[in-house]
């Protein structure tokens, strides 16, 4: 990408183009139960990145031969709307979407108790309606909440965020410009309660020492997102009194 010479992603005081500090997340908005027909759904907004996730299941497997005798299968589709990006994305799945569907599925499979629902499928659909960096991580954050709303047992929620390097500075939660013109982009997803990584990818160059610090940054962001996820769930269900149940 040819970068405009005058474009500075971060200034001497460590302020980024959108005014954030290096370790600051974009404003995060979470809503649970936004799509009525699904068994569980969530909407996540991280700055200008906007993502829906919906879960169906556990339900019968189609086609049947895919069913597993000892556990549920997890289907996952990560998809970007054609109008979510600057230049219209052609319809159909790109290679990028195929890869991301796989790593997101694997991240969720790490925490869902699939063995509770043999011979069924749990389907997770992620739709990115506007992309401004960090869509796979916002998608995962939303998907784990949709699973929770669907009542599917999990070892932990999954919270995710990207860290990266721009003009020599480590930064948390890259926006699109920072991702495009930066030196490194590392999406991280964790099951915070288990202190474990469930998704990890890296594109770019990070010195060994930077990697350690980048992971610390990611953890800080993930802790904040995890808090917000739990708050959102609590808010959603705090209105339910014992009498109603």
């Amino acid at each position: 990408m040819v970068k405009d010479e005058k474009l500075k992603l971060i200034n001497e005081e460590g302020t980024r183009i959108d005014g954030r500090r290096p370790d600051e997340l974009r404003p995060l908005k979470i809503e649970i139960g936004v799509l009525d027909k699904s068994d569980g759904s969530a909407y996540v907004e991280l700055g200008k990145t906007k993502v829906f996730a919906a879960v169906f299941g556990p339900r019968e497997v189609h086609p049947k031969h895919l069913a597993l005798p000892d556990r549920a299968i997890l289907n996952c589709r990560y998809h970007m709307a054609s109008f979510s990006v600057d230049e219209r994305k052609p319809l159909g799945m790109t290679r990028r979407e195929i890869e991301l569907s796989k790593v997101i599925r694997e991240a969720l499979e790490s925490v869902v108790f699939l063995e509770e629902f043999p011979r069924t499928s749990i389907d997770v659909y992620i739709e990115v309606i506007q992309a401004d960096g960090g869509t796979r991580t916002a998608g995962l954050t939303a998907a784990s909440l949709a699973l929770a709303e669907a009542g599917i047992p999990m070892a932990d929620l999954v919270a995710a965020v990207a860290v990266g390097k721009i003009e020599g500075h480590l930064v948390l939660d890259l926006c699109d410009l920072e991702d495009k013109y930066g030196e490194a982009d590392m999406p991280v997803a964790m099951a915070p309660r288990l202190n474990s990584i469930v998704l990890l990818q890296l594109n770019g160059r990070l010195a060994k020492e930077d990697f350690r610090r980048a992971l610390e940054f990611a953890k800080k962001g993930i802790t904040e997102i995890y808090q917000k996820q739990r708050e959102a769930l609590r808010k959603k269900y705090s209105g339910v009194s014992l009498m109603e149940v």
Partner: protein
Amino acid sequence: MSISQMKKSLTAKIVQEKIYNLLKQGKRLDGRSPTDMRPINIVTGLVEKADGSALASMGGTKILVGIKAEIGSPYSDRPREGSFTVNAELLPLASISFEPGPPDERGVELARVVDRSIRESKCIDLEKLCLVEGEKAYILFVDVYVLDYDGNYYDPSTIAVLAALATARIPKYEVLDGKVEKTGEYFNLQLQSLPFTTTFGIIKEKFLVDPQLEEESALDVSIIIGMDEKDNVISIQKNSPGLIPENMLEQMIDVASEKCKYTRQKFCEALNVKI
């Protein structure tokens, strides 16, 4: 749509127990230590019709890579650069678990992980692949074929791609009166970096590198780490379901740095090149 893969059979669980017990003693099924890689072998120039080709093996896993150069238009946002694309196929002759047809998600993931290492290390000087700014440039089609699959096709794929690139002879073209024609001469790519990857498998609190097939089916989780010659981490892909304890990562980065160095040394010896 990404669908869960068939998970561990009962036999795999028994094998896992066996591998884990060996790992605790610092041993493995085939006599390697946990951080030993299988022997690496590289043959280049096997396919004369390709502009560059290489067959690399790591133990029983064999990867064939061929490169074809074509002339096309540069991307509009990079008018002064040529380009390359990596494609990968898990051939049905390589394993009973691979089926004919267009690349599935495993093939797509392999191609994108190899692409990531090549791209992020900037090992190909793309500006040298430009013929006429904004109009004509070389496009390299790098095609990876898994020929024989005995576990870990990632590391030997990167080796084969780099070997094919390093030994490629690209036909020179020139533009005469708006027409693109071959000059009859050739040029080399002169790689600027040699990025390699190390694949890790984790069983409980132990890890190993370069899993062979039997080990691969018994792993809890696996991850690929790519590093360049300056010890920068340039690509990472966790490529299976499962939890990676956070405190394990740093240790794996250190081992990856050592193993990528080792692979680089073997690569340079085999091809008689220096970096």
